[in-house]
C-alpha cells in the first residue's frame, strides 16, 4: 500500500479542445481504495476528466499524478472501460480477444502472449459470466454483455485504478448487478475506482464519494454533501425535476429554493 500517497492527485487541471475549456482549474485528490462517482450534466467534462487521468488528453495547464508519479510515467496502472457509444462494435474482434487486450500492457512488443495471459483473460471473462460467449464477435452481444466484456478486459489488466465511463447507461438489471458486484469485489481488493455516472437517484447508493462537475469542480465529498438541492440546482439548471424526485419534495418548492439560491449565490461558490 502506498500509505498516505493518494491514488489520483489532480492539480489545477485545465483541458480545452479549441477555444472553450472542457475542464477548468480542477484540483482534487482521491485516496486509494475509494469508489468515486463523477456526476454532472451532459458535456460537463466528465469523460474529459477520465481521459486526462488516463493520460490520453494533454492538459493546457496542471498535472495529474497517480500514486505520486506523473501520469505520463505511470503507464499501465490505470484500466479503462469506455463508453458504449465510443466503441466500433463492427470491429473484427472476438470477446476473448478483447479480454486478452487487458494483458497487452504487460508485454514488450517482441514478446508473445503466454498461456498465462490467456488463462487470466479467460478467468476475467468467467468473473463477469461471459465465458460461454468467448468466440462471439463483439457486435453480436446484447448491450449488457458488451459492457461486461470490457469489464473483463479491465479486470484482466489487473491495474490499481479503474476508470469507467457510464458503465450503467442502458444496461439490463442483471448486468447492473453484475457490474456492481465486480466493483464491490474490486474495492475489497484495494482498487481505486472512478465511475462516470448519470443517474442521480442511484449515485448515493453506489459510491463512497461523488465529484460534481461542470467544467469547474463544483463539489467533491460524500454523497450527502454533494447531493444537496442548492448545488444540484446550480449545476443542472434545467434538470430540476430529477432531484425533486430524489429529494422527495414537491417540484414547486424545489424550484423556489433553486431560484433564491441562484439569486443569492456568491460568484466564488466552490464547495469541497
Amino acid at each position: 500500500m502506498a500509505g498516505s500517497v493518494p491514488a489520483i492527485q489532480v492539480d489545477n487541471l485545465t483541458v480545452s479542445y479549441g477555444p472553450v475549456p472542457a475542464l477548468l482549474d480542477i484540483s482534487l485528490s482521491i485516496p486509494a481504495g475509494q469508489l468515486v462517482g463523477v456526476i454532472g450534466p451532459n458535456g460537463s467534462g466528465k469523460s474529459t476528466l477520465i481521459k486526462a487521468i488516463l493520460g490520453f488528453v494533454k492538459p493546457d495547464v496542471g498535472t495529474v499524478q497517480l500514486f505520486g508519479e506523473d501520469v505520463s510515467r505511470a503507464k499501465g496502472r490505470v484500466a479503462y472501460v469506455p463508453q458504449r457509444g465510443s466503441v466500433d462494435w463492427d470491429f473484427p474482434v472476438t470477446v476473448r480477444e478483447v479480454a486478452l487486450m487487458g494483458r497487452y500492457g504487460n508485454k514488450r512488443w517482441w514478446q508473445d502472449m503466454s498461456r498465462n495471459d490467456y488463462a487470466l483473460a479467460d478467468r476475467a471473462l468467467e468473473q463477469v459470466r461471459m465465458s460461454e460467449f468467448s468466440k462471439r464477435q463483439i457486435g453480436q452481444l446484447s448491450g449488457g454483455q458488451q459492457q461486461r466484456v470490457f469489464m473483463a478486459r479491465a479486470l484482466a489488466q489487473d491495474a490499481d485504478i479503474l476508470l469507467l465511463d457510464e458503465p450503467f447507461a442502458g444496461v439490463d438489471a442483471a448486468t447492473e448487478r453484475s457490474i456492481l458486484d465486480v466493483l464491490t469485489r474490486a474495492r475489497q481488493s484495494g482498487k481505486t475506482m472512478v465511475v462516470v455516472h448519470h443517474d442521480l437517484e442511484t449515485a448515493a447508493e453506489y459510491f463512497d464519494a461523488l465529484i460534481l462537475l461542470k467544467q469547474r469542480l463544483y463539489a467533491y465529498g460524500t454523497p450527502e454533501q454533494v447531493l444537496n438541492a442548492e448545488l444540484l440546482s446550480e449545476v443542472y439548471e434545467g434538470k430540476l425535476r430529477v432531484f425533486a424526485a430524489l429529494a422527495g419534495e414537491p417540484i414547486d418548492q424545489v424550484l423556489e429554493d433553486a431560484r433564491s439560491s441562484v439569486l443569492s449565490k456568491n460568484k466564488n461558490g466552490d464547495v469541497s
Partner: protein
Amino acid sequence: MMEWLTEIHQGQGHLIKPLIVGTLVSLVCSIVGCFIILRRLSFLSDAIAHAMLAGVVGGYLLMKLAFGVEAHVGAMLLGALLAGVITVALVSFVTGASRIKQDTAIGIMYTGIFAIGAFAISMKALGKHIHIDIYHFIVGSVITVGNPELWIAGIVAAIVIPLVIMFYRELQLTSFDPVMAASIGMPVLAVDYMLTGMTSLVVVSGVRIAGVILVVALIITPAASAYLLFDKLSRMIVASAAIGVGCFWGGFWLARVAGASPGPAIVITGTGFFMLTLVFAPHYGLLADWRRRLHAVPQEIKEDVLGSVLRSDEEWVPLTQVMRNVSSPRPLVRSAIGSLIRQDLLDQENGKVKLTMQGRREARRLLRAHRIWETYLDHMGTPARELHGQAHKLEHLNDERTIDYLDDKLGHPLTDPHGSEIPEDFVDFEELEEVRASLLRKGNRAEVIRIEEAARGSGLHAGMTVSTEPRSSDGQTWTLVTDDGRQVQLAHHQADAVFVKLIQVDQKP
C-alpha cells in the same frame, strides 16, 4: 488458364517479372488495406495516390535537369513517396491547427498537390523536358515493369509484412481503442505514423500496377471483402491477402484473354469478387440477412412451444402433439421449433422433441412469468375463467424486473390460483448468489450476510447458517431454523431486510 501458365513457363519469360511484382504488390496492398478500412482512412490512401503525380514529375525533372538522366524510375518513386508523406503531414497539420474536418482537409491538399504535378507537365518551359509517358502513372502498366519495380516491390514487401507481424497487437489496439492503447503506454502517434508510412509505401508500389486513380482499389477492395467474411482481424488479414493476390492473377488472365490493359482488369476482378461477397457472405451477406429475416419467428410462438413441451408428461414429446397444443399457423410453429433447436433449447430425435438443460430453465422461467401473472390477475379480481387467457397474453412480458416486482408485491406466492407451484427466481436463485431471505423456500440452506434495520432484533446475525421451513399463515410468515436449532419467524418486510448467500438450492429438475 492452364495453357496460359505453360505459355509463361515456356519462353514467355517477359511475363515472369510482371507476375512476381504484381503478386508482391497485391499482397502488401491488401494486408495494409485491412487497417486502412478499419480506421476509415480509405479517402486518405486515395489522396496519397493522387498526390504522387507531383512527386513523380518532381523526381523525373530533378534527375533530368540536374543529372541528364532520362526517366529514372528510382527517383520518380522516391519523389512519389515524398509527395505522399507531405500530403499526410499537411492534412494532419490542417486538421490539428484549425476547425477544418479531416475529409475537407484531405480534399484540399491532395487536389492541390496533384495540380502542382499537372501544372508542371503542362508548362511549356518544363513540359518540353518531359518525355516519359505519364500515362503509365495515371493508369498503370504492369506489363512494362522492369528490375527497379521488382526491387521496390521486394523491398516494400520485406518492410511491410514483418512490421505487420511484429506490431500486430499495436496496430490492432490503436485501431480499435486508441484511448486504452495510450493508457498502457503504446506509442499511439508512432503507430499512426508507421501506418501512414506503410500506406505510402504500398501506394508507391501499387501505382505501377493500377495507376494513381485505381491503386486505392488494390488496397481497400480485397480488405472490404475479407471484412464481410471474417470476425477476427488475424483471419481477415490472411483472407484479404489471398483475395488480393487471387484477384491480381484473375485480372491479369482476364486482360490477356480480352487483349486489354491489366490494371483495370485487376480492379474489375476485385470489385466483382466484392459484389459476390456482399451477396453471398455467410454471416454479413445480403442473402444471409434475407434468410435470417425469413426465418425470424415471433418470440411468442417460441415461448408457447417451450411451454407446451414443459407441460407435457413425457420427456420426449411428439411434434404432432406440440403442433396441436400451440395455436399458431403450422409453418410458423415448425420454424419456431427449428429456431429453438439452433438456439440449443430443444433436442430433436425421430419426430420427437425434448428440452435441453438450458431449454428447461428457460421454459420454467416462462412458466413462472405465466403463473405470477395469473396470481396477480386473480389478486386484481379478474374472473377465474379469464385468468388463463389474460395471463397467456401477459406472460410474454417476462423481463426480470417486471416479474420480480410483481413477485414482491404479491408477497412471493408459492402457488398460483389453481394451486400449481410457481417456479422460483432464475436469475439470482443459484448457489453462492446473494438474495433477500424472502426468496427462500422450504429446504433451502443459506448463510446470513447482512441484516437491515427492519429485521434487527429478530435473533439472526451475520455469519450464521440457516435452513428454511415451510411458510406458514397463508404464506405470510417465513420460518428459518438456525444451526443451533432455534426457530426464527419473519414477516415479509423483515424477510426482505435479511440478505443471505445461498448454500444449497434444490432446483427441481
